[in-house]
């Protein structure tokens, strides 16, 4: 490919400004990008990116990790300096073989069979939260249901005291701020002395989460238990199958990704059910729709809006030449509304068949580790709401996060509906 003869790329409309997302995903802009020929170029700071927005193109990037690397540059929009990339590297920012080795350290706990063992525990937590929500006559759905459910479950799996759920949700909220322009913590919060650029999400809350993980590590070293932290501690001790750095980052990732994402799915799910009572009635009438309703909620929510890859070699995608070193951004939020794949993509349809959504990634090896756990949590919640014939009424505008990375909802008032 001769750069001097290549036509100038089509420019994408702005979709990276975090403030846009205060009003929800800018779907109309993504639809325009999907309709553009080839890949559109999106300016961003001193180095723009290729905006990959169509379902088929996202899949092509996700499933070609040797060309589209997770280990180079960064998996968020901005580049990191080499030392910061190393200091912040987690499972997310690795390619095979490191990715395969690290993932296998924890993947066993998240297989369909092992996740199913947690069903009773998930149900017990769900029932407690829903009954309290009903007893109070409603309230902030995020605070009362969407946030506590997933954090309590992942902490139970890790073996972390559930009494600390509030603190760890607070840390997660600070981490999410690091994906927007709204950092509210001073650099030395939680006793942090590390340069922020060396911490995940540039946040002192990462220091606090690492410290918390180190304390859990010491406790389980002294007194092993049947939990995920002990499993990781043993993997570190046993011939160094994982390093100290890898332990800290796996713990950080499991706590953060294990709660923030499903919280988002449950928040948007409630809003979708409130806005589409006919669809919820279908689920009540046909119990077997729980499964497809769960997938539709996860597609609808798309808790992680994008992930970035970096081209490891010159290549071509959708007829567009990509140079080695270029940023390539997979917009899951767009792929999940691609009219070429979904009939009526903006309709919330609990019976949608063949729903190959990209809310857990674009089909490649970085598939969400907790996908089956998220499905279990959402489907048990729907089952328990259905058992109570519980409709929802949305009583306030959702307060959304100013983030182009996570589709977060900070709060939304819900009340049991007239049919409850």
């Amino acid at each position: 490919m001769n750069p001097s003869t290549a036509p100038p790329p089509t420019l994408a409309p702005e979709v990276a400004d975090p403030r846009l997302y205060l009003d929800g995903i800018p779907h109309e802009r993504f639809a325009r990008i999907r309709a553009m020929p080839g890949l559109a170029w999106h300016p961003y700071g001193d180095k723009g990116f290729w905006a990959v927005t169509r379902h088929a193109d996202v899949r092509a990037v996700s499933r070609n990790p040797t060309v589209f690397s997770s280990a180079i540059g960064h998996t968020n929009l901005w580049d990191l300096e080499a030392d910061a990339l190393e200091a912040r590297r987690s499972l997310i920012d690795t390619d095979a073989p490191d990715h395969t080795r690290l993932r296998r350290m924890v993947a066993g706990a998240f297989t369909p069979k092992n996740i199913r063992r947690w069903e009773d525990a998930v149900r017990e937590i769900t029932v407690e939260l829903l009954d309290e929500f009903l007893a109070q006559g409603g309230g902030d759905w995020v605070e009362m249901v969407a946030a506590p459910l997933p954090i309590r479950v992942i902490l139970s799996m890790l073996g972390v005291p559930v009494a600390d759920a509030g603190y760890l949700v607070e840390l997660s909220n600070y981490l999410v701020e690091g994906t927007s322009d709204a950092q509210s913590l001073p650099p030395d919060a939680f006793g942090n002395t590390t340069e922020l650029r060396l911490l995940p999400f540039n946040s002192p809350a990462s220091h606090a989460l690492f410290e918390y993980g180190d304390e859990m590590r010491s406790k389980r070293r002294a007194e092993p238990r049947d939990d995920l932290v002990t499993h990781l501690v043993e993997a570190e001790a046993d011939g160094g199958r994982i390093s100290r750095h890898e332990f800290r980052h796996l713990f950080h990732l499991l706590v953060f990704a294990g709660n923030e994402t499903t919280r988002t799915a449950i928040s948007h799910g409630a809003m979708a059910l409130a806005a589409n009572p006919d669809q919820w009635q279908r689920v009540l009438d046909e119990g077997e729709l729980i499964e497809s309703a769960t997938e539709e909620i996860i597609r609808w929510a798309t808790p992680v809006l994008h992930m970035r890859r970096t081209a490891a070699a010159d290549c071509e995608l959708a007829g567009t030449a990509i140079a080695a070193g270029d940023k390539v951004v997979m917009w899951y939020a767009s792929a999940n509304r691609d009219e070429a794949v979904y009939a009526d993509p903006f309709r919330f349809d609990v019976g949608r068949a063949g729903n190959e959504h990209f809310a857990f990634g674009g089909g490649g090896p970085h598939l969400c580790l907790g996908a089956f756990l998220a499905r279990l949590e959402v489907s048990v919640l729907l089952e328990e709401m259905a058992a109570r014939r519980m409709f929802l009424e949305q009583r306030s505008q959702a307060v959304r996060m100013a983030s182009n990375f996570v589709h977060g909802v900070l709060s939304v008032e819900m009340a049991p509906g007239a049919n409850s």
Partner: protein
Amino acid sequence: MGGRLDRGPARSWGCLWASGAQFSTEILGERAAVSGDPVRVTVDSERCIGGGQCEMLEPEVFLLDDETAISSVIGSGVLSRERAEVVVHRCPGAAISIVEPADGARLDG
């Protein structure tokens, strides 16, 4: 880990089928008699990342080891070409392939 009681039948996650085609599957001991053109599938254990898609879609054909998080084929590893292609399509590690021809795979006569 996390000893909790198993309850109820397995969740099938069957709605994740990428294809709406109808199949009839009969289990004969370890061998699955399937409609359509039978093929045999294999798993490359080096590439497997333990994503669980194969076991979710075809629990009679794939078993994901809960300790190692590596999938392997159980029984004959035979299923219809159409279903095999769905599993190949959905495997996040691109670890599953179709072996052709399905030598000895014609089970349904």
